[in-house]
């Protein structure tokens, strides 16, 4: 069961503090959305994200997965906005009663390109950061261990529960339950959901006991096995990126480069 998109590596990008990569992803996203020039998001993508991908050595995993995720989103946005953008009047093409309009396509292209930057920045973060290191970095920066626990547990336990649901379905099928066709699938919900929910509730009780006996919830100051690397240069870089993001927001509010 693959719990994360993390691509194992030891590149300079992998070694960066996760917060630096998080601030980078947020900054390029904010910048992409702050300015309206249509060439701006692709420029950001090519100048900021692509070099980072190449330095991290994850391009073989990054580009195919990124395209598989982004292209359907971009096509959906283009179709929806192209046909239904409010106030558009310049018709580019017609399909039956539907008309593809220029203003809608321009807006869709801009949105899709901005989303490209957003997805690229965060996918790079996921690819080059171990989830455990990310969580440790968040906790060490002052986020509540309980909040971090909820996020981590959701990341791991949800796929584990999906695996269990699969097991229950196979067991029920072995006992004659049919899950073919819409009616079959709807009928299968009750025998599937019952054991899954009851099992999950039992697990919660046991897990609470286990967590209690392992000191979760004590008021002691926690320490961490995972050492999260950081440096003055990275702290300075984060501050500079935060300043850039803030500047972009202010520029957007003031209408600069719109």
């Amino acid at each position, binding site marked *: *069961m693959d*719990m994360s998109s993390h691509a194992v590596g030891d590149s300079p990008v992998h070694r960066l503090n996760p917060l630096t990569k998080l601030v980078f992803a947020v900054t390029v996203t904010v910048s992409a959305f702050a300015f309206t020039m249509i060439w701006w998001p692709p420029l950001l993508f090519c100048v900021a994200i692509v070099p980072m991908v190449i330095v991290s050595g994850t391009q073989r995993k990054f580009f195919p997965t990124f395209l598989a995720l982004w292209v359907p989103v971009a096509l959906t946005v283009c179709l929806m906005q192209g046909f239904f953008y409010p106030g558009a009047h310049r018709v580019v093409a017609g399909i039956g009663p539907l008309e593809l309009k220029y203003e809608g396509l321009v807006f869709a292209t801009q949105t899709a390109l901005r989303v490209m930057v957003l997805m690229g920045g965060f996918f790079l973060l996921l690819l080059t950061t171990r989830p455990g290191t990310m969580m440790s970095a968040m906790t060490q920066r002052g986020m509540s261990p309980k909040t971090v*626990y909820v996020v981590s547990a959701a990341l791991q336990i949800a796929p584990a529960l999906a695996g269990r649901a699969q097991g229950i379905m196979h067991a029920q099928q072995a006992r004659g339950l049919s899950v073919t066709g819409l009616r079959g699938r709807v009928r299968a919900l009750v025998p599937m959901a019952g054991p899954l929910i009851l099992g999950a509730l039992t697990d919660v009780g046991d897990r609470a*006991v*286990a967590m209690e*006996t*392992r*000191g979760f*919830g004590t008021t*002691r100051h926690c320490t961490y096995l995972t050492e999260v690397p950081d440096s003055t240069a990275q702290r300075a870089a984060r501050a500079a990126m935060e300043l850039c993001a803030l500047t972009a927001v202010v520029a957007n509010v003031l209408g600069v480069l719109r």
Partner: protein
Amino acid sequence: MIEFRDFSLTYPTGSRPALQKIDFIVPRGQICAVVGADGAGKSTLAGVISGVVPHMTGGETTGWARIGSRMLAETPASELVGEVALVMQNPFNQLSGARFSLREEIAFGLENLGVDRAEMVRRVEQVMADLRLTALADLSPYEMSGGQQQLLAIGSALVMRPAVMVLDEPTSQLDAVGAGVVFDALETLRTQGVTVILFEHRMERPARCVDRVLVLDEGRIAADGQPDDVLTDPRLADWGVAPLRYTTAARQAVERGLWEADRPLPVTLEAAAEGFDAALKGARTAGGL
């Protein structure tokens, strides 16, 4: 030292006590096995020793139980962390769910206790080596087999260096090799003076390393003594505990006159082999073979 005196417990929904007038003392460093049929009260006893019952389950108690100077009725599990470690039957439910590798999962309890990082690394590496888990250090706990998860749960308890280890069927999902690793770890704990309370169904392997066996039957202590005595007791089956294969084989040999009359019934493979060897030699000397 663990001490129970006239201890009884009834769950809020229970019609009869889950534990009835329990009396025993386990000295420091002893490995004590608790056996009994399903519903005999083993898990409840494990829960009481680890501070889970009645604090997290509810229930009324009479008599008292203590670990060292701590009265268990007044000490919840959270206050026994680091002193008592519990390994439950289902390893899946003992995973924190919040750590992404075996190494991090083992360290989870130490992180909560605020153990110094260098010490934490040392202990985690040691436990992984002892349980032969080092090769799996970076694997997600959820990608591991049931047996590997069980070893991980045991490792997560061992790393806390508790004074008392409570193990509720710790080898139920392990193969012979994995079970062997666990019992080797128990031997190490003995040398470190750790008190171990082992709840088990299959006693063939633990019979070699435990100092004492308690039999629970319907919430009461039915027998308490050395493994050689308790595990060869003819009433064992009446208490819902399957006699050991070695003992059963030797008992049948006794009925056929093949087992030396003054030789005790065996509870280990080694004792059984020795007994049958002696019986064979005796038969050869008598000209029977």
